């Protein structure tokens, strides 16, 4: 139980970061014609921010459901990579994986793998509970009450997840310079892709940059040692 509680605490920065995004999703959902129940239901069942926003814009554009589902699948394929990597960082039993895996997002993945040494299943469960609650609750509030967060604060809160990522990165660099090199290379590759292919989705940028930079990390290990 203490482990779950520690995990819940670990998820707080994610929930803070999710909140304004989820509220925006709720508001946009309403504008797209979703009822509060439907918008919140999407957040509760899908729990994947970027693809939910894309789904709204595609619904608005009159794209067929089948095509939206396909786009969602492709965008969220990156979780394959994160789920595979997470398996090596987590102590868990196989029967727990249906519950634990539901909560894998970009954010819960990096916090789970980098915030502490080896996470127990209970702690990860607490972590995803907080993140999930922030996401679902934010959507509900947004779809019911529109943007209740003052605009200046909502804009500023856009930095929250980035601040959290940086807070995970710096201690990693202090521990091993190679972690910093890999992260730096990944950012560089992501930027080159972003500039070179304006149409490419952020999901693919993350996948391609991660694959390339992790491979360079191993290569550096062997060549430079």
């Amino acid at each position, binding site marked *: 139980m203490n482990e779950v509680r520690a995990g819940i605490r670990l998820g*707080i*920065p994610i929930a803070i*970061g999710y909140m304004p995004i989820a509220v925006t999703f709720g508001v946009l959902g309403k504008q797209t014609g979703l009822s509060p129940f439907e918008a919140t239901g999407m957040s509760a*069942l*899908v729990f*994947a921010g970027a*693809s939910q926003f894309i789904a709204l814009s595609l619904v608005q554009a009159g794209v067929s*459901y089948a095509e*939206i*589902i*396909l786009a969602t699948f492709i965008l969220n*394929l990156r979780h*394959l990579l994160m*789920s*595979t*990597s997470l*398996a*090596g*960082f987590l102590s868990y039993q*196989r029967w727990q*994986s249906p519950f*634990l*895996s539901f909560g*894998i997002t970009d954010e819960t*993945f990096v916090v789970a*793998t*980098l915030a502490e040494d080896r996470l127990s299943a209970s702690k990860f469960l607490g972590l995803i509970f907080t993140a999930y609650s922030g996401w679902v609750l934010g959507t509900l509030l947004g779809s019911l009450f529109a943007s209740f967060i003052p605009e*200046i604060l909502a*804009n500023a*809160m856009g*930095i*929250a997840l*980035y*601040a*959290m*990522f*940086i*807070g995970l*990165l*710096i*201690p*990693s660099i*202090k521990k091993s310079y190679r972690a910093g090199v*890999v*992260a730096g*290379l*990944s*950012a560089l590759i*992501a930027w080159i892709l972003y*500039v070179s292919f304006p149409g490419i989705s*952020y999901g693919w940028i*993350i996948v391609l*940059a*991660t*694959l390339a*930079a*992790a*491979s360079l990390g*191993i290569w550096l*290990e062997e060549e430079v040692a």
Partner: protein
Amino acid sequence: MSVWWLIFGMAVVTYLPRLFPLFVVKDIPMPGWVKRWLQYVPYAALGALIFPGIMTVDQSNPLIGVMVGILVAMAAWFTRNLVLLVVLGIVLMIIFQS
């Protein structure tokens, strides 16, 4: 057609890629280099998640996000408290944007 079809469809295709590796990879022996490669994935993901995305935090000026990011990085050298760093980032954003 009810929008719930869309929601359930999205839920299924999002859940399966999350579940499959965690369920299958357990207890599969992997060569050492694959394990080491997977250990690098979080750092690599972190890099791509931070940049270039941080430039889009302020729609009108990409430098604001970068500047706040650098200041948060400096603070992160002294504290691992993520909530504190998140709050610091938000406060700095408010200051820089006004």
